[in-house]
């Protein structure tokens, strides 16, 4: 602890954690540990009081804890958490070109239908994507707010474990299809 403080010009760890969160608007707690050279448990000890003091917001999305600058509104926080997932991001990028049928999206991004449906559950729930049905009940996928989506996508910096987990589920879905 003293070593960390000395390395950063004697500033307390909590202050450095707070600065780091403000510099990176949306970060997973383990992602915070790396640039600060702290153990994840140590980072958590320092982030919880900050969350309580209202300087950053804790959010649970699909079983993971994410930390945000409190200036980011809840809708945006939800979007950013969803876009951490590579497949969700790919699907949304595909829809930036315009509304598309689910089968065309799965073909374009190379995933099983079950993989796409899993990610659509979250995206539709968060209001990022809407399912439009025509008179014959056929579904077309469309972004509800393409501009806001494009802005959120530019803020994403995915981590290696996130990518690995996403590709593993893609593989298993494709094998079990």
């Amino acid at each position, binding site marked *: 602890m003293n070593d960390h403080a000395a390395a950063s010009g004697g500033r307390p760890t909590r202050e450095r954690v707070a600065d780091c969160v403000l510099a990176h608007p949306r970060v997973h707690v383990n992602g915070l540990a790396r640039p600060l050279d702290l153990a994840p448990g140590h980072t958590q000890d320092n982030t919880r009081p900050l969350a309580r003091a209202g300087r950053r917001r804790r959010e649970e999305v699909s079983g993971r804890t994410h930390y945000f600058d409190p200036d980011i509104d809840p809708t945006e926080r939800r979007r950013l958490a969803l876009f951490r997932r590579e497949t969700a991001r790919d699907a949304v990028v595909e829809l930036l070109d315009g509304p598309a049928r689910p089968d065309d999206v799965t073909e374009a991004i190379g995933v099983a239908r079950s993989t796409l449906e899993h990610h659509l559950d979250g995206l539709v729930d968060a209001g990022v994507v809407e399912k439009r049905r025509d008179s014959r009940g056929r579904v077309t996928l469309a972004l509800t707010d393409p501009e806001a989506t494009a802005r959120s996508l530019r803020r994403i910096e995915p981590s290696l474990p996130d990518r690995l987990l996403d590709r*593993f589920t893609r593989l298993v879905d494709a094998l079990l299809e």
Partner: protein
Amino acid sequence: MNTLIHVEPGVQGTAYAVVVALGGVAGALLLGLGLAAFFRRRSRSYLLVALALGVLVARAGVAGASAVGLVAPDAHHFGEHVLDVVMAGLIVAAVYYARQVRAEAAS
């Protein structure tokens, strides 16, 4: 006669230990990935795939136990073939339940 099909610990002590350790670490990483995917999807197929990857860790465990003399060489050999059967069974079950889930969803 059976020396070709099974390298005894001690014959190639270091190489054996390194291979077993690498297998154990790789298996543990895959098991972690499988479990993380299961906790995300919460489906029986994902649980079975994670358990099948866990068999890789069990294989390394059996090999390690045999190296330190906890498991006799014959039991080690037989145990690994039993684990092969377990892994194949888990994957077959994962494929089977994947189909069942889709059938339920379709009806």
